[in-house]
Structure formats: C-alpha cells, structure tokens
C-alpha cells in the first residue's frame, strides 16, 4: 500500500511510529526513519536550550529502530541466537511498553476530541446583565490601570507561537526505490542477468547506487532475483527469476514493493543532507 508521511514538527517519534504501525498497517521496515529524524532535528532546532535527556531518549529509540529495521531488511542468513539478541529483546520490550503507553494517551486524546466536538455544538450564553442592571454591574475595568493595559498588550503581542519553519522542501528525493524498482523489474525482465556494476553504470550519484542496491535487496527478498558474488568485493551478478510476467512494472509485485520506496527516499534524503 502506498502511503505518504507528512512530517509535522509537533508529531513525535512515538506518534509517527504508532500511526504507521496502527493505522497504515505498515511493517516496521517501511517506517521512514528520516521522517522521524527530521521531526526530531526540527524540534531541537527550535529549542532555546538543548534537551540532553530528550535527545538521549530519542537516540536510543532511533538506534533500536535502525537495528530492527536492518535485521528485517537483510536476508536471514544465520538464524542462531546471538548474545546481542537478548539485549535487543530487552530494548524491544522497552520500546513496546512506551508504545503501549503512547497508544493509551492517543486513544484518550481522540476521546477528548469527541467530547469537545460534541460540546462545541452548544454555544454558551454570555450576554451578561442588560442595561437595566448597568448601574449595578461592577465595572469590569475598575482597578485596571493604564499600565495594566499596556502590559496586557505587550503580553498579547509577544506571546505569539513561533512561526514554524517549513522543512519538508529541504528533502529532495532524487530517485526513490519505487521508481528504481519499476525500472529494475523492466530491465531485469528483459536482460535476465546483469552485474550490479553495469546496472548502476549510469547512476549520477552515490544515492542512486544505494537506492538501486536497496531495490535489488527488496527484489531478492521477494524471491524475484538471485544474487551471486564469486569473490568478496567482486562483481555482484543479479539474475531475474521472477518469470516474464513481471516485465510489466505495474504488476502486483511492483505494487507490493512501493512501500519500500519510503526507505529509499529516506536514505536518499539523509545522504543528500550529509
């Protein structure tokens, strides 16, 4: 399922993760880490004081996500349980408990929204006493000095929320995995086998090479290509085994792969920024 994540400065990593996992029903490895990172960086940029605690917390979560993501992305070459897996399990439990807490308050927030929507249909009467009681009604300005008024004006004019700096436009996705997948499926369907070096000979940037590599990994994961590397650091040969029906880029396989585009986009974005 194709989706787009709108980075909103005020939405935190937990929100983002939850929204993606809960509502969009995407797998964890589809989560755009760069979105999360960008949101966080934007928050930090807007701070007068650097929040070390928050940053540490965030880095921990980001690290867990990267770890989990990379494991899901790579083929399961060795399945033995390693020691660090236990540490990972622990971290995962931690993350899970945070997500459960966050889910709870998300749901509570939605309920508050419902209550407010309901209540906002009724407008309160605020007319106050009519002129018959004017003489009696306490003068609301009694005791308000000119200085109070000046201070109130300064408060009101100063206490403006800071305008948000739009950051979305900074990210330029030169090429996404979705686009690459589309062309890879066509090229491979036609040529059947090609070295990765040849495949990326026309790449204009390292980004594009990376994105192609991710595309190939995805195709491998889907069982559409076979990979062969005779010697370490040698040429990687990509062989199409997906059948001829897949030469059409709009095939079901192509559709399924669109989600991965986010990852490519995110890596491209990060590379671009670095």
């Amino acid at each position, binding site marked *: 399922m194709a989706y787009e994540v709108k980075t909103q400065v005020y939405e935190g990593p937990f929100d983002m993760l939850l929204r993606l996992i809960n509502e969009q029903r995407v797998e964890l490895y589809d989560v755009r880490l760069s979105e999360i990172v960008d949101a966080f960086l934007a928050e930090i940029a807007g701070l007068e004081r650097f929040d070390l605690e928050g940053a540490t917390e965030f880095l921990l979560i980001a690290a867990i996500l990267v770890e989990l993501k990379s494991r899901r992305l790579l083929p399961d070459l060795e399945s033995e349980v390693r020691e660090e897996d236990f540490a990972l399990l622990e971290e995962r439990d931690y993350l899970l408990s945070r997500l459960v807490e966050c889910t709870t308050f998300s749901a509570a927030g939605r309920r508050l929204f419902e209550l407010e929507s309901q209540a906002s249909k009724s407008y309160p*009467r605020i007319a106050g006493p009519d002129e018959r009681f004017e003489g009696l009604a306490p003068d609301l300005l009694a005791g308000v000095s000119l200085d109070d008024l000046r201070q*109130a004006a300064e408060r009101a004019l100063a206490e403006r929320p800071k305008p948000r700096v739009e950051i979305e436009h900074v990210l330029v996705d030169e090429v996404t995995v979705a686009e690459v997948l589309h062309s890879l499926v066509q090229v491979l369907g036609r040529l059947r086998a090609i070295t990765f070096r040849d495949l990326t000979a026309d790449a204009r940037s390292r980004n594009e090479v990376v994105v192609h590599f991710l595309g190939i990994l995805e195709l491998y994961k889907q069982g559409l290509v076979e990979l062969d590397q005779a010697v370490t650091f040698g040429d990687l040969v990509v062989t199409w085994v997906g059948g001829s029906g897949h030469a059409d880029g709009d095939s079901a396989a192509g559709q399924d792969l669109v989600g991965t585009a986010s990852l490519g986009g995110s890596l491209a974005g990060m590379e671009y920024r670095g």
Partner: protein
Amino acid sequence: MSDCGQSSEPGPGTEAQSGEHATRARVAEAAVEAVLTVASEPVSARLLAELLEMSVERVETLCRELAASYEEEGRGFSLARVAGGYRLQSHGAYAGYVERFVLDGAPSKLSAAALETLAVVAYKQPVSRAQLSAIRGVNADGVLRLLVARGYVAEVGRDRGPGQAVLFGTTQGFLEKLGLDTLSDLPPLSGFVPSADTVEMLERALRPETGT
C-alpha cells in the same frame, strides 16, 4: 449530568422531522431560541429571517408567539423587542434575584484573556477578528462578544479588502472609564510591535495546525 441531551437533527436546510423537534414551526421556534441564547445584542427580524430562511413577517409572528408563551408559562426570561431587534432578557418579575446576583455573584474583573484582547484592540485598532485571533493565537470571538456587550469595544467599520471583515475599535466609554481624552494618551508600547505583514504571516503559520 455534564450536558443535557444532544440530539443531532435539524440544521439549516434540514427537513423537519417527526418526533420531539418535530413540526416545522417548532424547529423554527427552537432555532430562534438557540440564536437568541448566544446573542449578546438584539438580533433583527431581518437577520433571523435570513438565518431561518423564512419571511420577516413569519419571524415576527413567531417571536410574538414565543414571547407570549414564555410570559404565559411564567418563565424567568422574556423575549423582548428592543432597539430594532429581539433579545432574551431576564423577566422583570425576577429583577430582585438578578440584582442580587449582579451585586454578589457576577464576575467583577476582566479575565486575563479578555484584558489582553481589549488591550490589543486598544493599541491596534481598527482590527478584524482574524487579526485578533492570529495575534492571541486563539479564537477571540467569545471574548470579543463580551467586550462588545460590555460596551468597551464596538464595530468601527469594514475592511476594504475582499471579505470586508468587520473592524473593531474601542468606544468612548472605554476612554472615559480609563480616564483618557484620546487614544493617543495610551502609554506607548515598549519592544516589538508586529507589522501587518507579520500578523499575516502568523496567521498563515497558524493555519496548518489543524488535525491530522
């Protein structure tokens, strides 16, 4: 009970339905009641007619009947026709209670929010609702209505731009209460005063804040 019943039928243009809020006349009556409940100023028959999508004559008949029924039922409020419009007001028979309430119970001070809004109107007049909301970062309508009802603030004109937004300014009464001759006697503001451009920019910045 935190709120007393919230069925969700007849909006404007909705066909009258059977049941409690049934007949067309009853819907119109209730709509008048709803509007007058939230109004701080008398509402003209013409405006009511527009809101209810019926003739001015029908509105007048309806209001007369409603007023008579309140009187007959011995309600504590009455529907009065004053200064070119209709309004709900406390019934004269219960003025004693109202006086005691006004003396003892009514808020005797402007809230901080109301004072800030009043101050912004005073210094930046003429200002529109939207500008006020943008400056304060909140919808200013409720507070504005209170200030108008209390006679501190009044409509002073219309924006010439598209939309012709109503512009607000302070009243003579406001000046008198604060012992000022003219607005130029207001103490000067120190520090940053946003220009119209800045206000507009703020308005824009606030807009994407809507729910996901």
